[in-house]
């Protein structure tokens, strides 16, 4: 048996927007020992009856295949796509990053924020709250750069993802 390498995958689901649907998904991950790195969920259709869930998980290829087939067994789940495996996709998340500093670090923080195209959505004499949207990597590096400059708090949304081109989650 060859040793499989672990990697991360973005899985997108369409689920009936019913009570307990999210619990089923989350409990499947905890009950079977799968990992959730981030999770987003919101209704996406005009009636609010279908929600889209995006999960970033890590594991070997075969364990991620297992995650997908296990998710497909859930009654309220109507669609499961492993976007990482299925071709090019866009994955974005948003972060709110609070920096409390003054003097040179404060100026430096603002300069870096401009380079990253982060917006200052709240400003006081001693603090900024930056809003930044982008890939997980971009957010990670922004946060790392802010750390020595007075970073005190981070709030992140987790990944929203969609496949590139005209095809949709329904076509897979």
């Amino acid at each position, binding site marked *: 048996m060859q040793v499989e390498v672990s990697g991360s995958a973005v899985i997108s689901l369409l689920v009936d927007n019913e009570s307990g649907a999210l*619990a089923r998904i989350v409990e499947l991950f905890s009950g079977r020992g799968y990992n959730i790195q981030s999770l987003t969920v919101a209704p996406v259709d005009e009636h609010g009856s279908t929600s889209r869930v995006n999960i970033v998980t890590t594991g070997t290829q075969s364990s991620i295949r297992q995650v997908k*087939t296990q998710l*497909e067994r859930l009654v309220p789940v109507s669609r499961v796509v492993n976007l990482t495996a299925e071709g090019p996709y866009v994955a974005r998340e948003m972060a709110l990053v609070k920096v409390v500093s003054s003097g040179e670090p404060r100026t430096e923080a603002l300069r870096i924020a401009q380079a990253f195209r982060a917006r200052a959505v709240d400003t006081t004499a001693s603090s900024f709250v930056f809003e930044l949207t982008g890939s997980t990597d971009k957010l990670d590096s922004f946060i790392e750069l802010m750390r020595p400059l007075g970073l005190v708090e981070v709030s992140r949304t987790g990944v929203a993802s969609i496949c590139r081109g005209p095809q949709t989650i329904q076509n897979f």
Partner: protein
Amino acid sequence: MTRTTGSTTLTAQTTATQPGAEVLLRALVEQGVEVIFGYPGGAVLPIYDALFKQNHIRHVLVRHEQAAVHAAEAYARSTGKVGVVLVTSGPGATNAVTGLLDAMMDSIPLVCLSGQVPTPLIGNDAFQEADTTGITRPVTKYNYLVRKPEDLAPAVHEAFAIARSGRPGPVLIDLPKNITVGDALYVDAKSVTPRTTRMTSEPDRAAIARAVAAMKAGKRPLFYTGGGVINSGPQASKALRKLVDLTGFPVTSTLMGLGAFPGTDRRFLGMLGMHGTYEANLATHDCDVLIALGSRFDDRVTGRLDAFSPNSFKIHVDIDPSQINKIVHVNEGIVGDVGQIIDLMIEEWEKQPAYAHKSDLDAWWAQIEGWRALDCLRFGQDQAPDAVIKPQQAIQRIYELARQTGRDTYVSTEVGQHQMWAAQFFRFDAPNRWLTSGGLGTMGYGLPAAVGAQIAHPDALVMDVAGEASTLMNIQELGTIAQYRLPVKIFIINNHYMGMVRQWQELLHGSRYSESYSDALPDFVKLAESFHATGLRVTRLDQLDATIRQALEHNGPVLVDICVEEGENCFPMIPSGAAHNQMILGPEQEASSATISKEGQMLV
């Protein structure tokens, strides 16, 4: 407001509303429900009141909610229908949890109706309130909390569709009391589109063709069949027989699959796995094509994974895509109903060029017969009239004497040594006759299962092959047996130990029998009598047959306390983490296995 009785409203076609409890029963009737196993309580009183007022559905009162679920499981397993359970809120629902998981693990279609406190009280820690949907989420295929009257009938119809579709399983419907008391509108089944239809696909014929080509190329092939063949229906068992006739390949089965292929057929090698036969396990290890039909590579079957059937081309047919490549990587996975796939395999087998390895197959069979000659289930029974009975002797004679009656026979078991011996010694001719807790290994399963089977088949011979420790876990069901005059035969293989625990302690824990002795046992004969049944006891070999016969001939419930050898172990045994060719054999075989292993070294 006019309220008609249940029996008339059940047939009335009207758009008027009815109390929720009556809507519920009407939906059950439309789903073909004839029997409910249940136990009343505050939150389900409206449902019990509606049951009282109708004649379509029979209610069987158990003595504990866990037993209701096991009885419904056996009812379902032995009839192919969906079993139905009715329990109250709080402790009623939590008591059902073990049974629900048991049904989940063994893929048994059930619908469990649980009472719930009224919706305005949910979340207030009300009397007998439990977060039932939360608690049962991981032990059911799906569950509902009905919050609106208009959701009631559609939920019931969809629940049955979910329970019986795909890989069957238990579904729970939590029913707040204000929903069953309040009025609701009836909706019939055909106006509900269950969500089970979403993920269905046609079987992959190209994959079937490749699988059959691999079977045609096989020189040492083996069928490894499981509970899926039973779940697929009697037609699948027939198809399996035809496929085996056509190919001439040997067959082994999991615990849950026993009966799908006739146990008395020469091509059947017995069960495989931890307590499987020598020939079945060595054939699994050495085969070059392994055809898994409706089985799931359970750890009790595979033993050490990296040594499981190491050189075979593996074909896996399962209705549940998540089972394929879950544990063992297979070369050809086919998703679909196993009965249908077997039919397509037969079609493909006849279409493709004739099987060209007949002489290799003959050699394979010769090898298997060599292994079979070890007679791995043979045991040494002292033949003196007053000799202590070996548990294997008891179980073998129960099987043989029951067979002599010629009656249609259903066998349930508890869990442990006696279960494994029953699996080894009972040879089933037909599916749906073997009722055992496989995946979950629930002690206390057998007695309520016998209740369920006897309710479903009132004229059949129903036996519970039991252990004294397991059966005490649901012994209160003797009350149910008495109330409904169920002529169940309970054979307690009494070795004064939790036998399988004792065996593992002997083999793996230096014979330190920590807490595994069955101390302070009741007098089972008096216990039976106090529950209005006949109690018999046998302690010596010369009385064994007569006692079993007496039990089988009696037309009421009988409990037989068969006092057996205490220290007997169940062999063959693959210790956890060992390979299939590293079986521990019984004392009878150890002597001959020395000679066998010389020839065997070439074979194994």
